[in-house]
């Protein structure tokens, strides 16, 4: 989970794209995934994201993301299967719980859609430094700095939380609490008591951070920007390529 949203430093052609291009890529593919209801199209998008991860040299880190998405997707699929009794019965998972052809088609589509829609978003975050994302939002999209900063900071806090969670888990483990369990119900029972220290420490963290912002002139007036981010020919080509996914998704629909 913690690698899902964290920037991985690199210097590939894709890393050097304008952050806006990457943002467009994430949003457009995500939207296309919801328009297109075709297994092959979604699979194609998924494959496309894997190619991008490979081309930018972060396949190793991205593999963890795909694995997490796959597991999540599998749960979603199973759930959907159980609640779609329409169609021709193919086989029974449990006595009295049939799997139908419509159910299978529908639930696998759901799984693919979930994976194909989230993969580009997480890829975008892994390939764009937060600061550049911030610049793209404020300068190109004209989002007020205050709000753009809030969004980016919220994104940044997710891996920080998960790191903190790991730390608390380790602390509990060293005190003899059993935390490693595959049983999801037990896991929840283990996690709940940790939420309170996590909550307290994060409230304190947010407070210190707010103070740190205040004492460094956050939003006290006009703001300068260190990096100028330009569009290159490669950006334009990439945007055209990504935009093409939209009409395709509508045609295949």
């Amino acid at each position, binding site marked *: 989970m913690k690698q899902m949203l964290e920037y991985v*430093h690199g210097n590939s052609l894709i890393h050097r794209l304008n952050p806006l291009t990457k943002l467009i890529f994430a949003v457009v593919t995500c939207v296309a995934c919801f328009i297109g209801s075709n297994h092959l199209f979604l699979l194609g998008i998924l494959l496309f994201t894997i190619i991008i991860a490979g081309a930018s040299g972060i396949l190793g880190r991205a593999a963890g993301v795909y694995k997490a998405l796959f597991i999540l997707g599998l749960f979603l699929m199973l759930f959907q299967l159980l609640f779609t009794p329409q169609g021709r019965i193919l086989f029974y998972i449990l006595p009295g719980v049939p799997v139908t052809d419509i159910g299978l088609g529908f639930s696998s589509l759901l799984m693919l859609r979930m994976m194909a829609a989230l993969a580009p978003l997480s890829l975008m975050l892994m390939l764009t430094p937060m600061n550049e994302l911030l610049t793209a939002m404020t300068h190109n999209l004209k989002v007020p700095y205050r709000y753009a900063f809030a969004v980016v900071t919220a994104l940044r806090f997710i891996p920080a939380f998960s790191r903190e969670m790991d730390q608390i888990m380790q602390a509990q483990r060293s005190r003899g609490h059993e935390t490693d369990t595959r049983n999801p119900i037990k896991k929840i029972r283990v996690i709940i008591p940790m939420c309170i220290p996590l909550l307290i420490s994060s409230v304190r963290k947010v407070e*210190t951070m707010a*103070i740190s912002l205040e*004492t460094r002139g956050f*939003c006290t007036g006009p703001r300068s920007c260190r990096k100028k981010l330009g569009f290159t020919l490669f950006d334009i080509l990439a945007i055209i390529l990504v935009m093409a996914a939209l009409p395709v998704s509508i045609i295949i629909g």
Partner: protein
Amino acid sequence: MIRFNDVSFSYENSDEMAVRNINAHIGRGEFVGIIGPSGAGKSTLLSMINGVIPHFYKGDFYGEVLVCGRDTVESTCGKLSHHVGSVFQDPESQIVSTVVEDEIAFGLENFNIPAGEIEARLAEALRMAGIEHLRHESTAALSGGQKQRVTIAAAIALRPEILVLDEPTSQLDPRGSRQVFTTLRQLNREYGITIIIVEQKVMLLSEFCSRLMVMEKGRIIMDGPTRSVLEHNDRLLELGINCPRIVTLTKLLKNASLWSGGYPVDVDEAETVVRGIMEGTHDQYQEPELSIQ
């Protein structure tokens, strides 16, 4: 530059005064160390200089604090940030960016400094804090000590008139702590930046600070030139502050009537004292005046 006029403060939902009856004046270009046991109110005192109290932490505020001629109650944290740079106790949560260089540029961008100058100041701050090699690192992946250096670099890049630092070397090794103090001394001497630092390592304070404040239970109980404060090593020891060994040594020499001068503040001076005694020609240090409240 900074003036406390009979200042007392208690945090809201706490009936005890965190600091009480503070009267002090800190002039331009001073290098002040603050020391005292946990809960003595050191961080509270610093928070009154950068305006975090009363603008962020609310409570009962008595007296007045003047920073660069402005009453902090009437100013804002944002306005004061143009004069006062701050480094807080917890290095982790005061970092607001994901990459080291962005963290240091953050304040500069907020102050609307042009891009070219940001680059120059960024490079200088990285060099002064000794973290040039960390420039492109992710802030989340740094060690505690490295994070502390980043927060110091971010503060010095702003070139404030006043720099307040709350235990900025707590997670650094002895060598790293020394480097930080050396950097601060350089800032103090070259740019005339007034430095106020809370620190537990008394040896470093005694060597680098020109003035020492000792706090206990919300009060400043001693305030004066470092040398004179250190003479009260019995009192300091009662507070759990271990005096530098050279001070203890000098005390022993004094008790044995071998030495009647002032206290040395670093090893070189101590050496002079001991050599002086051995050669029987001790030239004495002047004892500056000390105020004890």
